[in-house]
């Protein structure tokens, strides 16, 4: 949405405003920009906001069609691909190279659903099993319905300020981006995708090591997205993320709590606001306001967003400050 449409509707006249567009990475990219704007003294407070009624505001077919246009208009769209098809292609290759199986991918859907059960406002509240995922309708094989995030209504907002406004604050320690391509046809090899580049840059600018991280909020548009990003970022070894899910490593009370709101897969995906919900949940966890979902120690958080077809990446380290 145009920033000026939002501002007019809510009767505000900001001194600085614009929209950002890097697909699913937009929320974190806006947050990164807001961080730099307040750091540079351009603004004291920046409202970062995203909201869309993707479910009720348009037909499901219209949503699928609009999303399919992410493809190249000449070389991809005439072949009838869909967003799940782009990720299905990536999934087939990743599974081939690293020995990941469909039941492995299903584990991520089950975990996100388990987390959504405890999150008010989540789109789904019925538990699912690996068998449910395996038996769900084929969408773009190897991806099935429960491997895919839903189309949702929703929104998220937060304010990035120069000075801390609450007793417990959250500080952006460092963030970085990487953009390697737009279309899946032009994507680099699996070992050269942007997540690894973005996290390396974020580590360098923040001085934070992965071993410092106590909470992870990782983009999960599809089960394969979450599996790949966890492994690209180094939160799991190659081909090992699913085994770590089974061991409880990413549970709320595990060593690395992950997307405790249920992620895009089960909290819901309303576009830009969908990935911003990861940051909202991280903030709640870091400030001790996550109710019965509260994790033991969310002192350092890692967020990662992905847009396009693993095209645009933003990594961000957050730190709790008192």
């Amino acid at each position, binding site marked *: 949405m145009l920033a000026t449409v939002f501002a007019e509707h809510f009767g505000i006249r900001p001194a600085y405003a614009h929209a950002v567009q890097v697909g699913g990475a937009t929320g974190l990219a806006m947050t990164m920009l807001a961080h730099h704007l307040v750091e540079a003294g351009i603004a004291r407070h920046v409202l970062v906001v995203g909201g869309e009624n993707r479910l009720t505001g348009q037909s499901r077919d219209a949503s699928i069609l609009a999303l399919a246009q992410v493809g190249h208009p000449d*070389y991809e769209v005439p*072949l009838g691909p869909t967003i799940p098809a782009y990720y299905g*292609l990536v*999934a087939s290759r990743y599974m081939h190279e690293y020995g990941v199986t469909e039941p492995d991918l299903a584990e991520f859907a089950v975990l996100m659903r388990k987390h959504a059960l405890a999150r008010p406002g989540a789109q789904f509240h019925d538990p699912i099993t690996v068998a449910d995922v395996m038996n769900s309708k084929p969408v773009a094989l190897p991806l099935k319905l429960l491997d895919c995030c839903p189309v949702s209504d929703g929104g998220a907002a937060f304010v990035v300020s120069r000075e801390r406004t609450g007793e417990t604050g959250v500080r952006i320690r460092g963030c970085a981006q990487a953009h390697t391509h737009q279309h899946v046809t032009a994507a680099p090899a699996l070992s050269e995708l942007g997540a690894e580049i973005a996290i390396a840059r974020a580590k360098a600018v923040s001085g934070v090591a992965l071993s410092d991280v106590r909470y992870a909020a990782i983009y999960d548009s599809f089960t394969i997205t979450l599996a790949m990003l966890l492994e690209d970022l180094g939160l799991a070894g190659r081909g090992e993320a699913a085994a770590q899910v089974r061991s409880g490593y990413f549970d709320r009370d595990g060593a690395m709590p992950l997307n405790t709101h249920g992620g895009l897969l089960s909290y819901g995906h309303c576009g830009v606001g969908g990935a911003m919900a990861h940051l909202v949940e991280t903030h709640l966890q870091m400030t001790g306001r996550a109710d019965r979902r509260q994790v033991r120690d969310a002192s350092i958080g890692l967020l990662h967003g992905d847009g396009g077809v693993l095209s645009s990446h933003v990594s961000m380290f957050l730190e709790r400050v008192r």
Partner: protein
Amino acid sequence: MSDGKRARADWTAGEAAIVYQCCAACGARQYFHRSFCAACGAPDPVEHRASGDGTVYATTMVCRAATPETRAHVPYTIILVDAAEGFRMMAHGDSDLAIGDRVTARYRRFAGRLVPHFSRLFQG
């Protein structure tokens, strides 16, 4: 975002052909047509007609389509192919294709358009 004039028509223009570009300066191959080389910036990459031979890089079977025209074809298999000439492309393929299969292109009608469709090379 294509620009520049096409020297050779390909399937995107309704011809039963796959065309790629090769940079005379740096030798890079590119599949998305441009009036310059995306690797080095040199103008006027040379267009070539591809053999249609390649190796399957990735596959997916689309079971939920986006439009009424494509829905009539469900399920259909979309693949990424590494062409023998050194570029990657998206196409259709037989439903039993697997990653690593050696394939060759034919052309079929799909949703009112001619599209490349790959099948396994006959291994005699």
